[in-house]
């Protein structure tokens, strides 16, 4: 019975091939831009720290 319910849910009234790609591409895009933005922030934080410590080295 449970698997029957799951099948009807996944079938989306026969519109599965439209509904699921819409949810899939939305989820993928949101995650992608979030991860990309976080990674670029981390990379710049590292670069900035490296520059700062380099400067301290110059002064010393």
């Amino acid at each position: 019975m449970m698997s029957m319910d799951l099948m009807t849910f996944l079938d989306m009234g026969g519109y599965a091939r439209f509904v699921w790609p819409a949810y899939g591409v939305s989820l993928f895009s949101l995650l992608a831009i979030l991860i990309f933005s976080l990674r670029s922030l981390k990379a710049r934080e590292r670069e900035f720290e490296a520059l700062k410590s380099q400067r301290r080295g110059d002064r010393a």
Partner: protein
Amino acid sequence: MKIANAIFPWAAGLAVLLFAVGLPIALVTSPPDYQQGETVRILYLHVPAAVMGEMIYYAMASGSAAYLIWRHPMAGLVAKASAPVGAMFTALCLICGMLWGEPMWGTFWVWDARLTSTLIMFFIYLGYIALGDAFEDPERGDRAAAILALVGVVNVPIIKFSVNWWNTLHQPASLSLTKSNMSGEMLLPLFLMMGAYGMFYVTVLVIRVRSELLAAKIRNARMSQIAGNEAAQAIG
């Protein structure tokens, strides 16, 4: 930036919460439409993405105006950080709309006023991003892109009113500030998903503005380093 840091955990938490509540309602518990069946579930992605695409455009244009008129650097950074997010939401609006159009209209795409003006907004976003990177002097790029954002703002009300001004295949709005032609069972997941998208934008915006600020600091540090080296050479 202090305010941004203070709201960041709240926006991120709210985004997670709204997605956690909104997605199951949008996908499972909300009823199918009596005409459109289960495809109505695409509405909970398509409409919030469309609203975000337009709202972020207004944010980007306001930031660009403040940057051009008052030379407010932070406003310029907000505009710059917003553009890719707005472009993504506009693309999602178009893709989800196409996946809804094919089963309901019998076509993925028509060149009607609503669809065409939304596509133009997407291209203006891309143009803004490309123009910002097109100059050797980053400030010139920022100014050129800001001007493009301001010119392109005329298109956004056209998107909104296109369904009233012209005969479009796209339906007119079912929602306004004062009345609604939708049942509460469908409004709830719609508002939850709009809230989730909005909070998601704020979250990503804070991350991207921090990143842009650091990029500017790195640029300045490198410039002073070069200047320092040249001065040292001149003395030596």
